[in-house]
Structures are given as structure tokens and as C-alpha cells.
């Protein structure tokens, strides 16, 4: 029982950390592709930018849910 609380904190930290890691890798790849596209066809930057923002929100959605779950574990379950 004593071990449960620290394990929950570790679980919350892992969820938050791995979520952030996933988001950063995804957005990094997305940014690289955006730069490639912008270098090839600079006139398409406004369109690429909109697509970039839409996909960025999509990539961000799942890690943010992971952050929410981590907050739940840290604030509600661990108490």
C-alpha cells in the first residue's frame, strides 16, 4: 500500500513525459516537412501554414489527453 502512491506519481510523470515526447517528435517531423514544402514552393506558404496548424492541433490532441489523465492520476487517484 505504501508503494502505491509513489508508483502513481511515477505513472503520472511517465504519462506526461511520454506524451510531451510524442508531441515533440510529431511536431518536429511536421515542421521539417513544412520547411521542405516552403523551400520548394514558397508561394504555397499560406496554404501549407493552415494545414500545418490543423495537423499540429491534431498531433497535440492525444498528448493533451494524456496530460489530462496524468493530472487526474496526480490530483485525484494519488490522494
Amino acid at each position, binding site marked *: 500500500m505504501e508503494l502505491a502512491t509513489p508508483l502513481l506519481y511515477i505513472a503520472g510523470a511517465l504519462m506526461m513525459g511520454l506524451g510531451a515526447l510524442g508531441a515533440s517528435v510529431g511536431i518536429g517531423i511536421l*515542421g521539417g516537412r*513544412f520547411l521542405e514544402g516552403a523551400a520548394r514552393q514558397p508561394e504555397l506558404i499560406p496554404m501549407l501554414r493552415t494545414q500545418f496548424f490543423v495537423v499540429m492541433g491534431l498531433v497535440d490532441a492525444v498528448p493533451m489527453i494524456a496530460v489530462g489523465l496524468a493530472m487526474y492520476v496526480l490530483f485525484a487517484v494519488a490522494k
Partner: protein
Amino acid sequence: MRFEYRRLIGLQGAMVMLGTITTYFFVTPQAARSVAYGSCIALIGTLFLAWRLKQGESKESSNAEWHLRQAYRTAIERFVWVAVMLAIGFGILKLAPVWVLAGFVTGQAAWLLVPVWTRWKTGLNKIENTK
């Protein structure tokens, strides 16, 4: 504002209202408050992203690096916004965590639904065009 964002914000707004009303009538008013809070975090995050997009549109700079820097900054700001608001909701406002999270997940699910919806509509249009 671009069409995709208007559609997304409309869908999220509908989800906020539907989730809150459903929870109010079928669960408790306290749970409805928590669901509204969680959904509003997601909705304000989307509005923030849309505002940044509009800011860049008005500038229409051909400097891709500037756009990329702004997008990364926005992603970090959104992440911090969500973490801080959830911590405030759970820690200070003492809202029901499960319902806050349910509202937040519902709001964020709109992000996952919009591409599916768009693809489905595009598919339907293609079918109609081939007829």
C-alpha cells in the same frame, strides 16, 4: 479565419453545449459545471490556435522560419495552458476530476473528428460528382 477552423470551433462549441446539458439533466449540476470547465479548456485552446493563425494570415510573410517559430511557440503555449488550467480545476476549484477530464476529452475529440468528417464529406462529394 479558414474554413477548417470555423468548422472545428463550431463542432467544439456544439460538443460543449451538448455535453454540459446532457450531464446537467442526467447526472448532477456539479458534474455539468466540471464538464463545461473541461470542454472550455479545449475550446479556448482551439480559439487560441485560430487567433494565431489569423495573426499570421494578416502578416502573410513569405518567411517560413518565422511561421514555424510562431507555430512552435503556439504549441508550447497551448500545452502550458492546458496543464495549468487542469491543475487549477483539480487543485484549486476542486471540480470533479473525472467529469473535467470527460469534458476535456470530448472537446479534444473534435480535433480527431474533423479530419474524418472532412474526408467523409469529400468522399461523398466525389461520389456525387461521378454520378
